[in-house]
């Protein structure tokens, strides 16, 4: 088999970038990682993703793929062992549906929480806790969304960790707490304990510092 060249352009604190690291590591794909400075994007990044100039970008044998969920599907279809998506079309639809939910509902809601105050913030927290209750409905009794092992939705749901770190950085009460959301709370502990996944989260102290700087001033 010819030498495969895989590159990932990303940033250390970006959840969408970290998603791709998890996917590649689960498949055992060797890759070169390039850390981007988003205030000073490299010519290579701009060349590989001229449309929205964003990370993550995966470059496989010179061809580039952008958009984290698109990249994850590409990885699953190209390296077929250890599948990330289930085989059944309905199960696949559910994984895609909830991944979309996380990107389009959960993430904006999380963004609102970190900049809001008082009553408004309380309202946003209630909203996001309801969203997480909805996610629990999909997880049910399973170890992970993907079943016995990590799957597409577990990887996409990594953004939940960013909310947990942000809330800690801001000295807020636990939003994803065991009392209100026992099912998702359990899942999160298992996720953070997973050998592959835990290599792909930003170092806690550095991440906390980043959030204190980014969101702390509005408090």
């Amino acid at each position, binding site marked *: 088999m010819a030498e495969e060249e895989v590159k990932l352009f990303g940033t250390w604190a970006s959840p969408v970038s970290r998603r791709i690291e998890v996917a590649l590591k689960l498949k055992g794909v060797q890759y070169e990682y390039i850390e981007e400075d988003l205030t000073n994007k490299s010519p290579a990044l701009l060349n590989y993703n*001229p*449309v*929205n100039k964003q990370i993550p970008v995966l470059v*496989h044998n010179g*061809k580039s*793929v*952008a*958009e984290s*969920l*698109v*990249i994850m*599907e*590409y990885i699953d*279809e*190209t390296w077929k062992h250890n599948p990330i998506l289930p085989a059944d*079309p*309905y199960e*696949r*639809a559910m994984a*895609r*549906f909830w991944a*979309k*939910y996380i990107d389009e509902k959960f993430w904006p809601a999380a963004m609102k929480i970190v900049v809001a105050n008082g009553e408004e913030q309380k309202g946003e927290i209630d909203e996001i806790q309801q969203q997480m209750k*909805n996610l629990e409905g999909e997880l049910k009794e399973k170890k992970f969304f993907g079943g016995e092992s990590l799957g597409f939705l577990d990887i996409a749901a990594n953004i939940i960790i960013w909310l947990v770190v942000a809330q800690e950085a801001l000295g807020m009460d636990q939003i994803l707490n065991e009392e209100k959301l026992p099912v998702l709370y359990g899942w999160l502990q298992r996720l953070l304990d997973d050998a592959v996944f835990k290599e792909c989260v930003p170092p806690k102290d550095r991440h906390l510092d980043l959030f204190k700087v980014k969101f702390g001033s509005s408090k």
Partner: protein
Amino acid sequence: MAEENKVKLHGMWASPYVKRVEIALKIKGIPYEFVEEDLVNKSQLLLQYNPVHKKVPVLIHNGKSICESLVILEYIDETWKNGPPLLPQDPYKRAKVRFWTSFVEKELLENVLLVVRSEGEAQEKAIKVVFEKLKLLEEGLKDLFQGETHHIDGENMGILDIVLCSLFGAHKAQEEVLGVKFIDPEKFPLLSSWVTAFTEVAVVKALQPPHEKLVMVYQFLRQKALRPSAAGVEVKEGVYVTSLSRSSPF
């Protein structure tokens, strides 16, 4: 055919998201029952099948519901493998189709809706953004089609064609209501010839409401955003079209 295997689509005649699913079902030759929803008075069934978003389209197959039009399109392609494919075979080509579909959905559609819902300076700004995005798409098409003419018919329409069609199939109505020509053959020759091609596809033609109805839809959306009391509707989060539900489809 067993009751379980039946396909039902809960939708609404003016919704482009629903249109996407109908086009896909017809291309694949899948028989289905269409359930017209009144979005002001949503049926118990709809709320049961889509408790999270409470929106159309919802596809029911084998007693299970699938929501979100793009998720439904992929489900259709993966479940009915005998009809024409909605995505290419090659993973890299599939990634490109998914990327541009996401671009049309997030970058183009959102901004076209902004143009519809705004006026004055805000609208000027939104129009500028749409033209920037159209330019990017035109460039992207050169890469996507690789210099070849993209010939479209009922046999080879795919997810990207369907999604773009659901947005710009009504371009003439948009032009009439907004006074802006997005699908300009001089500015965007590839995109324009592509839009012309898919509006001529028999399946698309059969599903397209008449021009006057589409004009009405866009006028209504504009009214609802700018002068809701005049439109006579309560502006509700997430409701695509409200009082239009009560008018007949054709």
